[in-house]
């Protein structure tokens, strides 16, 4: 085994680097979006109107609030307020679940209307609308996967806090999970206006 060493700053720096890889991953989808928007501006507006702006806005507020709660959790553990840390982490996870439930209802409705990648109905609406929804589903889908991963990470770390393995002296795991969660929020901050709000 290797020599034990502790380097909290290094651990955070490594996490930031990992977050950059996630940004580049999503950037591929956003580049395709930019290209397609440039080519089909009117169809993108028309397609955007088919998305449910209420679900989108509520989900935006849900994620922003979850970013608040996990940020508060870091302060809580720095101040050795273990119970508060756990409660705030759990609220973050609950908000994540709310986000995913909203998504479930939103997508059920869309798919029920025959709008999903590869569907005949979508193809009939023309290339501009087709590419909008293809990119929407793939981007929001990949984002949803990250919501799942991020909230699971927070769940695991919350358990470690409860067990006393993550403490006010040693909380890098919680910090890094929070960083990952903020990235999930950041992706949505861009996804929301670009897909839901085109006029």
């Amino acid at each position, binding site marked *: *085994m290797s020599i034990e060493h502790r380097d909290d700053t290094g651990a955070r720096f490594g996490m930031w680097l*990992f977050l950059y890889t996630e940004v580049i991953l999503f950037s*591929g989808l956003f580049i395709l979006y930019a290209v397609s928007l440039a080519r089909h501006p009117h169809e993108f507006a028309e397609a955007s109107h088919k998305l449910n702006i209420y679900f989108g806005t509520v989900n935006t507020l849900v994620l922003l609030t979850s970013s608040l709660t996990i940020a508060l959790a870091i302060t809580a553990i720095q101040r050795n307020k273990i119970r508060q840390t756990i409660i705030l982490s759990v609220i973050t996870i609950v908000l994540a679940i709310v986000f995913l439930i909203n998504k479930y209802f939103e997508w059920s409705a869309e798919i029920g209307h025959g709008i999903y990648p590869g569907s005949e109905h979508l193809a009939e609406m023309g290339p501009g609308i087709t590419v909008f929804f293809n990119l929407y589903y793939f981007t929001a889908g990949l984002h949803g996967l990250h919501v799942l991963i991020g909230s699971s990470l927070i769940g695991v770390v919350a358990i470690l806090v409860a067990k006393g393995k993550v403490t006010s002296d040693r909380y890098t795991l919680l910090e890094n999970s929070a960083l990952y969660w903020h990235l999930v929020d950041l992706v949505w901050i861009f996804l929301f206006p670009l897909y839901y709000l085109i006029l």
Partner: protein
Amino acid sequence: MTETTLTNKGFYTDSPRSGILGWLLSTDHKRIGIMYLCCILAMFIVAACLGLLIRLELIAPGVTIMKAQTYNATFTVHGIIMIFLFIIPSVPAAFGNLVLPIQLGARDVSFPKVNLLSWYCYVIGAILAVVAIFSGDGAPDTGWTFYVPFSTQTHTNVSLAALAAFMLGMSSILTGINFVTTIHRLRAKGMTWGRLPMFVWSLYATAWIQVLATPMLGITLVLVILERTFGAGLFDAARGGDPVMFQHLFWIYSHPAVYIMILPGMGVISEIIPTFARKPLFGYWAVAVSSLTIAFAGSLVWAHHMYTSGMSDFAILVFSFLTFIVAIPSAIKVFNWITTLYKGSIQLAPPMLFALGFIFNFSIGGLGGLALGAAAADIHLHDTYFVVGHFHYTMFGGLGFAFFAALHYWLPKYTGRMYNHRIAVIAFALLFVGFNVTYMAMQAVGIQGMPRRYYDYLPEFTTLNVVATLGSWVMAIGLIMMFYNLWRGVRKGAVVGNNPWGAATLEWQIPSPPPMDNFGPEDPVVTKGPYDFKGVVADEY
């Protein structure tokens, strides 16, 4: 009388867990490096055999030993294994892991468990690749570049192969994150940025590209898999997509990838030349900054792979111009290596021979790259054997030879034993001659117009193809000789001390093979530069 009993086996025996689990669950950078090295060598041999089969098919026009479909699968798998399972991980994952922490004066990398995870990602990727070749509708036949629309429509195992490449990309990303953090955070006392060995600088630049470019490959592969699964039409013009966008996304990674491939090799050369000229590297900061410049400039030029794709004339102009710029820092390195040799005390030991071979081969490859970078010339040369010659000169004649140089340089340190020099020199000569015969013939037949990825060709191309195939057999003999010599050296060679080459970097100040904790109980304190040979004496062996 040469010593043959290796009494102290360092990190091979000194481990908290014994047996096979002591290796498979080890988070020690040296054990992980050895595990990577074994896998990488195995993959190289498999892919090299596929290459020999390709050359056998091409010894005569028409069907020789395989039909068109098999040929397409063979060159595809040859490319996938060579690029993702050999070249990209070869120097960073094997030698980077073995050498980097020690050269920094550290005891391990910043994230040892992530390091082990990166090896498992590699192994999973390798297994998936093997499954992709032998199951279902068979090995992918798209070329390693997976261009749409063929890759989204062919029945072969493209999705599995794409998943394999995704796992291998994950492995590369984790290595990159580890190395950037390690170099920033774990340098020993006195190891300032200006005292870093050039190998470390090259790994640093490489690691940044691994972090920032590889995820683009990730999303591109995911999109191919999603397309094959849902048939959405993301790259289908009739449904609002653009097949050329696939090429943009693909090459945004795959061009910087070639710098992931070559930069660590250049780092190896920068270690070997000073040691075997017994002179400090000329232009330390120029070479260090050139590594960073190559990493940056390499992200500006990807669409020079796309001049004939249908993209805009303006883009062709921009990318051609930027491509000429990226040649400059590489040239700076070559000039500095040559100047290091000037008035040096040169020993033509095997590592040095491979390093000199690198400089020769890479220079030819680089100049060929300039010809291809010129858009007007590329219209004729694109997708011909000129391209195949170019990338084999840089990737095989360049990185391949650098990898062999690294083997000859560092295996004695990490095994404690020395191979036979005379056989190494003969093997090198066969390799060097065979290599240049094979690939110069390809450059020539490419200019004459022979397309790549064809199992058949016009009768007028026959002579050069025969020459290339004969050259490949000379290379094969050289490779067999080289590997046999290294293997015998590792098992039974003369035992070496700390510093058989008389080098000045930190790994040569500790036993061969190194102990598990690298430096013993005290952390090292660095007071000299990496190429300060004053008072450094080589151990006899």
